[in-house]
C-alpha cells in the first residue's frame, strides 16, 4: 500500500514537473507563434527574403527544393527557405480549412500540389493562388500535357515539378523463362499483352501485372494513353457513351479474369508483389521506380519500356501519365516577386538544378531543355544498363493530354466502383451509366 502511494505521488510529481516546463515552453511557443505568423504574413513579413514552403517527401521534393534554394542563394545570399514537411493529404486539409474559413493568411508562400487536385483547388478557391501567366516564367519550355494540369481558363497557376510519365517495368529474367525479351513487350497492344501474359502465367505461374483493387489508376492510365478522359472539354462527365472507356473497362476485366493481372487490396501488398518477385512486371507513373529499386537483390533484372495501347480506339498511343505535382505560389505570399523569380531561376530555368536532383532523387524533369543534359543519358545499372531517364523523357513528350476536370477524384472513385462490379460480373454499360449518374449527382445535376 505504501509503495503504491509512493508510485502515485511520484507520477503526480513527474506530471506536474512536465506540465510546468510545458507551461514555460508554451509561453515561448506563444511568442514563436507570433513571429511564425509574421513569417506567414499575418503581421507583415518579418524576413523579406524568407519563403515558406509546404511539401512532403524528404527523399524527393523536399530534397529538390532544398537544392533549388542552395542554387538560388549563390546569386542571392540573403535568400532563405523555410520548409515545413507536410504530407500531401495534410496540405489539402490545411488548404481547404484555411481557404474555406477565409484565413488565407495562414497559408505558406509556396506549396506543392498534386496535379490531379490542381483544377479542383484553383476553381474552389480562386483567391488563394497567384496567376503566374505574366510572371516571366516561360511555360512553353515544359511539356504541354503537363502544363495543362495547372492551367485554368488559360491562366497558369503552377510551375511543373515532377513527371508522371507512365512506364511498363518488367523482370526480364521472368520474361526469359517464358521465352520473351523486353522487345516483345515494346509498342504492343493490350490484346498482345494479354496473349503473352497468358504464356508467362502458364510457364512461370506469375501474373504480368498487379494493381491495387478498388482503385482506378490502371484504368485512368489506359484511358489517357488514347487521349481520352472521364470528362469532355466542357467538364461534363463522359462515361456512359465513351467508347474508349468501354474498351478500357472490358480490357481490364479480361486481364483480371485471365489471371494476367492480379488485384491486391492495398499499397503495401502492391509494392510487396514487386519486391518479393511474385509478379513479372508493373505499369505505373515513373515514380514507382524508387519503390522497385528498394529490392536491391533484383538489380540488373528489371528493364523498362512503354505501355501497351488500346486495340480499337482511334488515337491510341503507348504513352500515358499518372501522378506528378507542380508548385503553386499563394496570394498570401508577401514577397511575390521573390517567389516568382525563385521559381523562374530554378525549376523553370535551371538545367543545373535538374542535373543535380536527378541522381539524388530520381525526380524527372518536365523542363524540356534539361532533358538534353548528358546526366539523363547515363546508363542505369539497376535497369540492366538502360538509359531509363532518356527513355522516360521521351515517353513524356509523346503523352497525349487529357481533361482532368474539376471533379477528377469523384470520377475516379465512381469508375473504381464500376470496375469492381464489372470484374465481379456486372454489365459494363449499366455500370458506366451508374458511374456517370454518380458523378452527375455529386456535381449537383
Amino acid at each position, binding site marked *: 500500500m505504501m509503495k503504491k502511494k509512493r508510485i502515485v505521488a511520484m507520477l503526480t510529481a513527474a506530471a506536474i514537473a512536465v506540465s510546468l516546463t510545458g507551461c514555460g515552453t508554451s509561453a515561448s511557443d506563444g511568442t514563436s507563434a507570433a513571429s511564425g505568423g509574421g513569417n506567414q504574413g499575418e503581421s507583415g513579413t518579418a524576413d523579406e527574403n524568407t519563403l515558406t514552403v509546404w511539401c512532403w517527401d524528404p527523399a524527393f521534393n523536399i530534397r529538390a527544393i532544398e537544392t533549388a534554394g542552395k542554387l538560388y542563394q549563390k546569386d542571392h545570399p540573403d535568400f532563405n527557405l523555410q520548409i515545413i514537411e507536410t504530407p500531401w493529404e495534410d496540405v489539402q486539409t490545411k488548404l481547404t480549412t484555411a481557404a474555406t474559413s*477565409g484565413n488565407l493568411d495562414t497559408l505558406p508562400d509556396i506549396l506543392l500540389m498534386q496535379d490531379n487536385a490542381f483544377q479542383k483547388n484553383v476553381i474552389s478557391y480562386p483567391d488563394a493562388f497567384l496567376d503566374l501567366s505574366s510572371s516571366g516564367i516561360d511555360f512553353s519550355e515544359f511539356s504541354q500535357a503537363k502544363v495543362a494540369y495547372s492551367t485554368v481558363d488559360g491562366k497558369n497557376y503552377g510551375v511543373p515539378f515532377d513527371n508522371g510519365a507512365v512506364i511498363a517495368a518488367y523482370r526480364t529474367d521472368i520474361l526469359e523463362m517464358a521465352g520473351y525479351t523486353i522487345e516483345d513487350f515494346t509498342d504492343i497492344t493490350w490484346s498482345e499483352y494479354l496473349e503473352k501474359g497468358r504464356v508467362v502465367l502458364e510457364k512461370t505461374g506469375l501474373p504480368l501485372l498487379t494493381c491495387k483493387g478498388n482503385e482506378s489508376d490502371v484504368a485512368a492510365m489506359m484511358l489517357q494513353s488514347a487521349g481520352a478522359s472521364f470528362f469532355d472539354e466542357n467538364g461534363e462527365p463522359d462515361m456512359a457513351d465513351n467508347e474508349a472507356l468501354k474498351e478500357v473497362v472490358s480490357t481490364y476485366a479480361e486481364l483480371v479474369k485471365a489471371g494476367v493481372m492480379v488485384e491486391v487490396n492495398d499499397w503495401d501488398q502492391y509494392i510487396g508483389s514487386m519486391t518479393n518477385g*511474385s509478379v513479372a512486371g508493373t505499369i505505373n507513373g515513373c515514380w514507382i521506380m524508387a519503390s522497385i529499386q528498394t529490392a536491391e537483390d533484383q538489380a540488373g533484372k528489371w528493364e523498362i519500356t512503354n505501355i501497351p495501347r488500346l486495340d480499337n480506339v482511334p488515337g491510341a498511343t503507348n504513352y500515358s501519365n499518372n501522378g506528378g505535382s507542380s508548385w503553386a505560389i499563394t496570394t498570401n505570399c508577401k514577397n511575390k516577386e521573390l517567389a516568382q523569380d525563385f521559381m523562374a531561376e530554378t525549376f523553370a530555368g535551371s538545367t543545373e538544378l535538374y542535373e543535380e536532383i536527378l541522381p539524388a532523387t530520381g525526380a524527372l524533369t518536365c523542363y524540356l531543355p534539361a532533358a538534353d543534359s548528358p546526366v539523363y543519358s547515363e546508363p542505369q545499372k539497376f535497369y540492366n544498363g538502360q538509359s531509363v531517364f532518356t527513355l522516360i523523357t521521351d515517353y513524356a513528350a509523346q503523352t497525349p493530354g487529357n481533361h482532368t476536370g474539376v471533379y477528377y477524384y469523384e470520377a475516379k472513385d465512381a469508375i473504381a466502383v464500376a470496375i469492381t462490379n464489372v470484374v465481379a460480373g456486372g454489365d459494363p454499360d449499366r455500370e458506366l451509366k451508374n458511374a456517370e449518374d454518380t458523378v452527375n*449527382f455529386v456535381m449537383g445535376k
Partner: protein
Amino acid sequence: MNGKGKRMTLEKRHSLTGWGFLTPAVVLIVVMNFIPMLRALLLSFQAGVGNRMSFAGLYNYIRMFQDAVFLRSLANNFIYLLIQVPIMLVLALVLASLLNHKDLRLKGVFRTAIFLPCATSLVSYAIIFRSLFAVDGFINTVLVRLHILDTGYNFLGHAFSARIVIILALIWRWTGYNMVFYLSGLQNIEYSVYEAAKIDGATPFQSFWKITVPLLKPTILLTAIMSTNGTLQLFDESVNLTNGGPANATITMSHYIYNMSFKYVPNFGYAAAMSYLILFLVAALAFIQMKVGDKRD
C-alpha cells in the same frame, strides 16, 4: 415550518454549488462544441462550392436521401453497430469479470495485454490486418492447410467478408478499451457480495448476471452510448482497412463526409447536413438507451 424553510434554502444552496461545479466544463463545451455546431447547422442549409455558398433551404437534407453512396454508408454503419457493439460489450464484460478475480495470477500482464490493441497505432494495425487477410496471407494459408478452402479467398475484395473483417478489427481494437471502464466500475462493488453469493450456492454465471451486470449498469450505459456514438462516426477502419471498398461495400458515413470535405470538390453544406443526420441518429439511440438504463434506484 421554519425548519422546512431552512431545508429549502440548503437545497437551493446545494443546487447552486452544483452549478458552480459544472460551470467550467459546460462553458468550455458550449464555446468549443456548440458554437461551431451552430455554424455547421447554418452551413447545412447552404449549397455551393468551396467558400462560395448560398442559402438552399432543406436541399442538402433532401439530397442525401437520393444519394446512393450515402445510403449505402448509412446501412453499413448500422450493420457494424448492430453486430459489433453487442459482441464487443459482452466480451469486455466477461473479460473484466474474469480479471477481477482475487486469486488470479499475472493479472497485470493479462490486463495490459488485452488493453494493448487500442493503444497500438492505427498504422501498424491497419497494415497487419490487411496482410493477415490478404489472398496469400496468414488466415488463408491456415484455411488452405486445413482444407477448408482450396485456394486463397480475397476477404477484403468481397463485400460480405470485408464487412466481417471490419467488425473483427473493431472488436479486436475496442474490447480492451471498454474492459477498462468495467474493471474500474467493478472496484465499486464489494468483493464480499460475490463471496456471499458463492456461499449461497450461486454459479459464476449466476453471479455474473445477478450481481455484476446490475451493479455495473451505469458503466454499461456509458459504454453503450459511447460505442453507439463511436460506431456511427466510424472513420479509421473504413479509410485504412478497406478504403471503403470493394465498390463502397464498407464505406462509412464519416468517411464519405470526409471525402466530401477534403478529397472531392469541397461541399461543406452537404457535409454538414450529413453530419447532422448522424447527430440525430446517435441522439435518438442515446435517448432510448438512457430511458432504458439511466435510472437511479
